[in-house]
């Protein structure tokens, strides 16, 4: 439709810049009659922090799930770490391993203790020896403020703790990019802060991040670029200040007005 902005911005990122970490090229995904994502173009550079906003059902989750292949494209091409994945194809597990993902509802493994949640993939995918995997897992737990919870069961944790464990579990694979799908939407309000704090530190550490969220304060503080989706389309994108203070599209303006009045 109107915008070719994302691609232009990706390309303008500096002469001789490295190829994008992720590129979606004309990617569409349908569920029956519903076009969840409609010919999306998006490039994400290494180290970039992208925040995806938009109304419920606009295709935000589908968009980021297309990146790591939890959804398979019907059209177009996904490029991940230089590897092209054509429509109707799943990325190989080795490529997914480079893409950490954090879900709205945590999806911790309830039959494993916290420490084993963190070491499962490093041991079975990266083939790390148990001792090494555990040492690294304990470091990560300390980093998210949960050093004391290694032996706990997921069911014993609060929502905020669960989500911090989920972040640590994803980081244990030392991914090159982290995808967050509304990581604070299922949390009680008093626990949102502790999770956003962990994400903020991760961003400061230089991680490439794609975050679907309604936390506009986080978007403003952390995002390099905000992408607005509506009805399956990427409608517009730009730096947070520009997007929030002078919304370049009437639908974004309407969306922002709605969520601000809801607060």
């Amino acid at each position, binding site marked *: 439709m109107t915008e070719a902005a994302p691609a232009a911005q990706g390309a303008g990122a500096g002469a001789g810049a490295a190829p994008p970490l992720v590129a979606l090229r004309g990617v569409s995904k349908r569920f029956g009659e519903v076009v969840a994502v409609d010919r999306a173009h998006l490039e994400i550079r290494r180290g970039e922090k992208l925040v995806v906003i938009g109304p419920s059902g606009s295709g935000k989750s589908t968009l980021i799930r297309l990146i790591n292949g939890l959804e398979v494209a019907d059209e177009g091409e996904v490029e991940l770490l230089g590897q092209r994945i054509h429509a109707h194809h799943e990325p190989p597990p080795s490529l997914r391993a480079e893409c950490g993902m954090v879900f709205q509802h945590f999806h911790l493994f*309830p039959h494993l203790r916290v420490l084993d949640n963190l070491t499962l993939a490093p041991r079975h995918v990266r083939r790390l020896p148990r001792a090494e995997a555990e040492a690294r897992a304990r470091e990560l737990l300390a980093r998210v403020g949960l050093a004391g919870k290694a032996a706990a069961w997921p069911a014993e944790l609060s929502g905020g703790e669960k989500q911090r464990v989920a972040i640590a579990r994803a980081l244990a694979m030392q991914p090159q990019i982290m995808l967050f799908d509304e990581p604070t939407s299922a949390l009680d309000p008093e626990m949102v802060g502790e999770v956003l704090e962990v994400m903020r530190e991760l961003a400061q550490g230089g991680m490439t991040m794609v975050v679907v969220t309604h936390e506009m304060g986080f978007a403003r503080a952390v995002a390099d670029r905000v992408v607005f989706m509506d009805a399956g389309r990427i409608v517009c994108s730009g730096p947070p200040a520009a997007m929030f203070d002078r919304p370049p599209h009437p639908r974004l303006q309407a969306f922002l007005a709605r969520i601000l009045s809801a607060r």
Partner: protein
Amino acid sequence: MRYGARSQALTGRQLAARAAVLGLVGGALWLALARMEYRWDWSVVWDYRAQFAAGLELTLLLSLGGMAIGMALGAVGCLLRVSQRDAVRFVALLYVELVRGTPLLVQLLIAYYCVAPRLGYDQPRIIGMAALGVFAGAYVAEILRAGLESIERGQTEAALALGLSRWQALRLVVGPQALRRVIPPLTGQFVSLVKDSSLLSIIAIAELTKRAELLQASSLRVFEAYLTLAALYLAITFPLSRLAARLERRFTPGD
């Protein structure tokens, strides 16, 4: 009793009520038998104890063997059933529907009189055990499939997102969680199989039921032979049913 009420927390009143029910049922039975002026002779059962023991042993052996075969076939059937390919799923569907849609007795007759002779095979016990296994496998496949499908999709997605293969996701994440949920229904399936194994008596296997029939035929003591038979089955199935019920409570989510 209220649904979900715990049996170990029976009150004195409940115990008294249960005792009254047992007393009434027992009394009615005793009266009915007394009116017939039946003359009991339990000595034939006692004299036959070695045969009963051998029958019990064979029944347990055939049931356990049948269940083992059933678990293996069920695991394979379940994996086929959740395959990505329609033709593969159809193979499993065919197996499950054919077996579950026909009586075990008919399957035994076909196995013993149609299939085994064509293969030149005449080991009734092996044929019987295999038939029990094929029978149980269809039910086990469905129990396992229901177990897998009861685990929310987010578990598989989280595993895949971490870089696990589909097989690893099944083996390390979904399978272990499903296993806990299928232990109670599998125990129940085994209880059914022990009872169903009585049908093996019609293909000349000297398991428990066949032994009781032989005793009845030689002694003409119908009541003693068949009441003992019922009691022996109960001696196996009752503890297992209780165990299944306990496991059910233990593994019910949110309990």
